[in-house]
C-alpha cells in the first residue's frame, strides 16, 4: 500500500516504546513548552535540552540520528524569521548589499534568529520521537485520558482509520489521471490551468460524495453492532511505577532547564 509511508511508528521494544503513552505525551508537551519559555540565547539550557533529546533518542533504540534526519522539515519555515536578522537594533556585525539596498545584520538579530530556529528544531525532534515510539491509537488514548473531549478523540481516531483508505483512493485517482494525460504530435497538450484545476475540483467533489456515502455505510455497520451514540472502550492501559518515576524525573529535569536558562 502506497499510503503506508504515512505510518510514522517504528516498531521496537525499547524502554521508550514500553512507556505508557500518557507519559510520552506529557513529557513531549512539557519539553516543547520549556523550549518556548527559554529566553533568547540561553545556550546552556538549549544545550542541555539537546542532551535530553539525545538521551531519549538513545533510549528508544532508533539510532542516534533518527530524529535529526527527519527534523529538517521545519527549515523552510525558518525563512519567515530571517527578517529579524536585520530588523532588530544592536551592534552591527556585517553589512551586505541585497540588490540595491544595504542591510545590516546585528548581533541581537542574529541571537534572536538562531534562538528561534533552535527552539523549533528541538521541539520538532521531540514530537518526531513521540510518534515514532508510540502507535497512533495509543497517542489518541493518551489524549482521552488527558481530558481531551471524547468526541474529538474519537473523530481523530476515525480520521486516522479512514485516512489510509481515502488517501489510497486519491493515489489511484491521480494515477488514472496521469495514465490518460497523453499528448500527440501536432497538438498542444494539457489544456488550460483553469481546466486542470476544474478536473482536480471534480476529483475532490467525487471524493467528497464517496466519503459522505461511506460514512452512511459505516454508521450502519456501527448500528448493526449495537451503537447508540455512546462509544464504549476498554482501556487496558494502566500506569506502572516506572511510568510515574519517569514522568517525575523528566519533568524535574525540564524544570531545571528553565532554572539554568534564567540565571
Amino acid at each position, binding site marked *: *500500500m502506497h499510503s503506508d509511508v504515512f505510518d510514522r511508528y517504528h516498531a521496537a521494544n525499547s524502554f521508550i516504546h514500553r512507556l505508557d503513552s500518557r507519559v510520552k505525551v506529557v513529557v513531549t508537551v512539557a519539553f516543547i513548552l520549556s523550549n518556548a519559555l527559554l529566553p533568547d540565547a540561553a545556550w546552556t539550557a538549549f544545550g542541555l535540552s539537546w542532551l535530553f533529546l539525545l538521551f531519549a533518542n538513545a533510549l528508544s533504540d532508533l539510532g542516534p540520528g533518527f530524529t535529526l534526519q527527519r527534523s529538517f522539515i521545519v527549515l523552510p519555515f525558518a525563512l519567515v524569521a530571517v527578517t529579524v536578522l536585520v530588523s532588530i537594533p544592536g551592534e552591527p556585525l556585517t553589512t551586505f548589499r541585497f540588490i540595491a539596498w544595504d542591510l545590516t545584520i546585528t548581533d541581537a538579530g542574529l541571537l534572536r534568529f538562531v534562538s528561534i530556529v533552535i527552539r523549533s528544531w528541538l521541539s520538532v525532534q521531540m514530537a518526531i520521537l513521540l510518534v515514532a515510539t508510540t502507535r497512533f491509537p495509543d497517542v489518541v488514548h493518551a489524549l482521552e485520558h488527558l481530558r481531551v473531549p471524547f468526541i474529538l478523540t474519537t473523530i481523530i481516531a476515525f480520521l*486516522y482509520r479512514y485516512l489510509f*483508505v481515502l488517501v489510497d483512493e486519491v493515489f489511484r485517482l491521480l494515477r488514472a489521471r496521469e495514465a490518460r494525460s497523453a499528448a500527440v504530435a501536432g497538438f498542444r497538450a494539457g489544456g488550460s490551468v483553469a481546466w486542470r484545476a476544474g478536473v482536480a475540483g471534480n476529483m475532490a467533489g467525487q471524493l467528497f460524495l464517496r466519503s459522505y456515502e*461511506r460514512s452512511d455505510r459505516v454508521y450502519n455497520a456501527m448500528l448493526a453492532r449495537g451503537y447508540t451514540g455512546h462509544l464504549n472502550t476498554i482501556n487496558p492501559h494502566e500506569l506502572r511505577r516506572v511510568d510515574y518515576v519517569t514522568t517525575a524525573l523528566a519533568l524535574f529535569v525540564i524544570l531545571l532547564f528553565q532554572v539554568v536558562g534564567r540565571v
Partner: protein
Amino acid sequence: MTNVLSVRDLHFSYHDHHAALRGVSFELCEGDKVALVGPNGAGKSTLMLHLNGILRGQGDVTVGGVRLTRDNLPAIRAMIGLVFQNPDDQLFSPTVFDDVAFGPLHMGLPKEEVLTRVEAALQAVMMSAYRDRMSHHLSVGEKKRIAIATVLSMNPQILVLDEPSAGLDPRARRTLINLLRELPITMLVSTHDMRMVQELFPRTIVMDEGLIAADGETKEILSDEGFLNEHGLEKP
C-alpha cells in the same frame, strides 16, 4: 428444527420512491445455510439491512421468536450478525482488538466476558495473532475474516453476509469457503459466486426486482438454465 428468522410480506421504498422490496417472505430454520442470489439491484442488500432494523419497511420481521420493533432493536441486533460487503466499512476502529470488542462492549458485557469473546471470535476465524494489528495494514482476505470476527464476538444466532467472496483471489476465496463451511451457525449469504453457492449451500433463494423468484434446493435451482438466465444468473 426451530424457526429462527421469519420475514413476512416485506415492502420497502427508498426516498426516491424506488420500490426495492415488493413483498418478500421467507423463513430460516436453525442451522440452515442459505444462499441469496440475484442480479445487481435485485434488493439483496436492502433485504439484509432490514433483518436487524437498520432499514424499516412495511411487513414483519421476527428473529428468534421476537418481533422486530423499535424497542427491541438492541436485542435483535445481538441476535443477528450482519457483515457488510466492503470490510473497510465494517472495520472502523484503529486496531483489530477494538473492532472485535466493539459489539460486546456495546452490549454492556463485563470486561472479562468481552475479552473471552474477542479471543474466541478471533480463534474461530484463525486470526488470534492479529489482535493488536491495525486494520489498515491487513490484506483484503484478512480484513474479510476480521469483519466476520467482529460479529461472531456478539455470539449471534444468525450470520448474515453480504457478498463475502467478492475481490478475493482463488486461494483466499478457498480459505473463506472452508471457514464458512465449518462455522456451526445459521447463515444467509448473498453472493454472485455461483460456484460457492453450489459447493456450500444446500438451499438457495433467488431474488429479482424486489421479489423472491425462487426458494428451494440449490441443486434444482442451479440445474434450470432457462430460469437462471431469466434472472441474470449463470450456471456455475
